[in-house]
């Protein structure tokens, strides 16, 4: 393994100012970027929120989830359903339902007309589902690779389910053509920038909240259960609730990220939430640094930036490049880019 310590020693003084530097850049962005680039940055930041949750469960909890796309999708579809329903004249149903031969709105779509219900659904549905699912697995003391495989299967099943129910989910094409959210026209002046600020604010809230959580005794016990589950158990703690709560929080963050991404991208579809996107989410974090909140956000931004640059020119090349990057990081930088900065990261 090559010695990267010289590099990391040089970068060391930068470490404490890095989050502040990123925040300053984030605040400056709307004044410096074109509307197109700002929209792109906002999408990547939404993915950064997903990455924060993966640091919590994978880095600090040792729980590898290859199914975060499911929770991302739940958040994304919740906001998309709201936008589809809220814009409808009374009594009408979304056009894709008409084309599939439906005559009325499914009952479970109707509450999404309410903004409050939608926001609660974005926060609570992924969290509750994540809690139930992870409890069912962890309390049977299944973990490690098996857990990763189960989450992978869950992502596949979820995407398949959405595709197969074309009449109520929009199927393979997903949901798109949104005009307004919570009463604001999406193309009205100031609204895209406002949504950018909301995204930046939620990213900061997630970052600060998780920093606090990881520094608390909860974070300590999560790491303890990662490194010595039996020792923790035979000190009198039940490790399961710590892992379940962490997983639920990560699911909630993925849901929030998915909802914001859908707002910025103007579309949610199975292609954004299935097996491959779920693995990509883990790759961002591996590259940025699985133990570091700031590293993971940077990883999400950089990888998606690179993806955008490469895949527009050479669409087939991207997966190979990402694979190569992943192998490079795993073999040479197990702590990701954040590992270049000495110390342990946030």
């Amino acid at each position: 393994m090559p010695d990267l310590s010289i590099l990391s020693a040089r970068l060391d003084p930068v470490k404490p100012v890095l989050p502040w530097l990123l925040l300053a850049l984030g605040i400056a962005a709307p004044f410096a970027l074109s509307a197109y680039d700002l929209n792109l940055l906002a999408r990547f930041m939404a993915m950064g929120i997903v990455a924060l949750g993966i640091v919590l469960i994978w880095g600090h909890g040792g729980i590898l989830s290859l199914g975060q796309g499911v929770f991302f999708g739940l958040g994304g579809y919740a906001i998309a359903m709201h936008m589809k329903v809220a814009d409808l004249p009374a009594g009408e149903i979304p056009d894709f339902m008409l084309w599939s031969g439906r005559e009325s709105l499914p009952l479970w779509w109707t509450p999404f007309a309410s903004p409050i219900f939608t926001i609660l659904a974005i926060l609570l549905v992924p969290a509750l589902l994540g809690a139930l699912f992870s409890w069912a697995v962890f309390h049977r003391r299944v973990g490690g690779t098996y857990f990763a495989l189960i989450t992978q299967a869950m992502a596949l099943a979820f995407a398949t389910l959405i595709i197969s129910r074309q009449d109520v989910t929009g199927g393979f094409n997903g949901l798109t053509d949104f005009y307004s959210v919570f009463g604001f026209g999406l193309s009205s002046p100031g609204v895209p920038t406002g949504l950018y600020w909301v995204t930046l604010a939620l990213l900061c809230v997630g970052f600060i909240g998780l920093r606090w959580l990881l520094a608390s005794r909860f974070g300590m016990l999560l790491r303890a259960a990662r490194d010595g589950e039996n020792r923790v158990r035979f000190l009198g703690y039940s490790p399961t609730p710590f892992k379940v709560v962490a997983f639920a929080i990560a699911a909630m963050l993925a849901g929030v990220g998915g909802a914001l991404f859908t707002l910025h991208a103007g579309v949610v579809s199975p292609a954004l939430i299935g097996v491959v996107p779920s693995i990509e989410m883990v790759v961002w974090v591996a590259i940025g640094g699985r133990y570091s909140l700031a590293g993971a956000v940077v990883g999400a931004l950089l990888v998606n930036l690179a993806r955008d640059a490469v895949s527009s020119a050479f669409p087939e090349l991207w997966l190979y490049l990402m694979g190569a990057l992943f192998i490079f990081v795993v073999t040479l930088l197990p702590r990701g880019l954040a590992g270049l900065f000495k110390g342990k990261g946030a």
Partner: protein
Amino acid sequence: MSGSATSDLLLSVDGVTIDYSGFKALDGFSLTLNRGERRVVIGPNGAGKSTLCDTIIGRVRPSEGRVIFKGEDIHRLPEQQIVARGICRKFQAPGVLPTLSVRDNLALAARKDRRWWKSFGTGIPAEEKQAVDEALDMVALTHRAGVEAGTLAHGEKQWLEIAMVLATGAELLLLDEPTAGMGPAETSRTAELILSLGDSRTVLVIDHDMSFVEQLAAPVTVMHQGRFLKQGSIAEVRADPEVAAVYLGHTA
């Protein structure tokens, strides 16, 4: 021993069988410990010593027999409740939490309220802080309190884990090969540490380092193939031909 009042009885392992699909790691094994007693369990590899510890702390569940602790049958309780009753075990391979500091390892052990929803703070009650400081002092790791436990030397890890077990405040300590991997000087210090507990705790030690066992000056129970073989002082056990045949014969 037979004359002691039943109120002194702390632990009774009663006819326990652990069956690993045909292989009986414990085969109708019984053992009793009185409050404040120190006991050593020896036996050749595979005699069932570690399985005995596993059974008491609820890691494996007996198909026959019971485990009575302070008059309560604990053999079906969840692990964390068994710990809460006052039993803690040191594992054979050091089981410290490597990425936490030495002090944090002890703080988690000393914590009284172990429910997850009480874990969102950082503060440590004065009483627990004192228990941590005492435990650090007892194993002479005070000067190492801030380092990551994973960076400790092997012997220090063993002591830290003993300190963790002590810091839980458990009445019954199960020490599974506490001197594994230690040199003679470290082994003697470990024996002193255990002796210094006096009768404040009940201690069950598993080991096969005979010089260490001698230093502990405690009654010895010999196990063989999951069954009770002999009990007596170390001298009696050493002199016993049956014990020599199954166990000491290898080293004598």
